[in-house]
């Protein structure tokens, strides 16, 4: 179970580095989004970027670096866990926020049905059980 860190083809190293840099960049942009975006629901999109683009690409880069070993299998498992749990956690937070009385910030002038319904009804909880 040793890491094949050296002695590999340089091209694979380059690919791994590129993937990891891209992943770190996506994670950074996602976190900037979490800071910049205006309300909870929009901030979830930034968090989604960290969980998918950031985590996925960095783990992919590590997989490329590790080569076909057990380490890669573990990395795949970590990625799978993040990919399966991230939407569920996001959904749980969204439901909790809706139940707690936070209404999604919606731009005026969007021509979606739901928007009009909320403006008429006065609250955003028509979809909660």
């Amino acid at each position, binding site marked *: 179970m040793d890491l094949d860190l050296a002695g590999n083809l340089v091209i694979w190293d380059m690919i791994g580095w590129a993937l990891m840099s891209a992943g770190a960049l*996506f994670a950074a*942009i996602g976190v900037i989004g979490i800071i910049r975006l205006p309300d909870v629901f929009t901030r979830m*999109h930034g968090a989604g970027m960290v969980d*998918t683009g950031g985590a996925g690409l960095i783990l992919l880069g590590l997989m490329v670096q590790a080569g076909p070993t*057990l380490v890669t299998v573990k990395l795949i*498992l970590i990625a799978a866990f993040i990919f399966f749990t991230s*939407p569920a956690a996001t959904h749980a937070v969204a439901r909790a926020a809706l139940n707690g009385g936070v209404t999604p910030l919606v731009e005026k002038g969007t021509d979606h049905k*739901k928007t009009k319904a909320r403006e008429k009804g006065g609250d955003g909880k028509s979809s909660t059980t």
Partner: protein
Amino acid sequence: MLRAFSLGFVLLVLWGLLSGLMEPFLMALAVASVLVVVLISRRMDVIDHEGHPIQLGWRSIFYWPWLFWEILKSNLLIARVILGQPMPILPAVIKVKGSQKSELGHVIYGNSITLTPGTVTIGLERGELTVHALTKGTADDLKSGGMDRRVTAMMGDEKKYAAGAGGGEP
């Protein structure tokens, strides 16, 4: 029963991959723990088409690369949105109808929507998903229904598992 065997096999492979040691004593321990876990899972009645969806089979393997590609594309899109000055966002809450027959299908569809940045599923009730979209582009993209068709195609023949009257929110 087939599901129980399949679950046991998956667990055993997982054990082997995580430990990496193949001594007889350790493998005996592995087999024993896998047996206990499968028995408990059977007793808890969690080995069904939702807990261990082997009926999806090879179709799900083709779905994943497509989903990854979509995720990458929307990541680039949202990155551009977040770095915009000012941010060209147009948040909206839209409702879309999932064309899947079973609850599992709806959940997979909803999770796929959340995994692609730019759209987050915030509600799911009887096949109708409430989605928060960050920009107009992502909302329109979702409404065009490409992902819905993909998920339905992956689910295959799911009449057997169609959602009953008591379905809806878990």
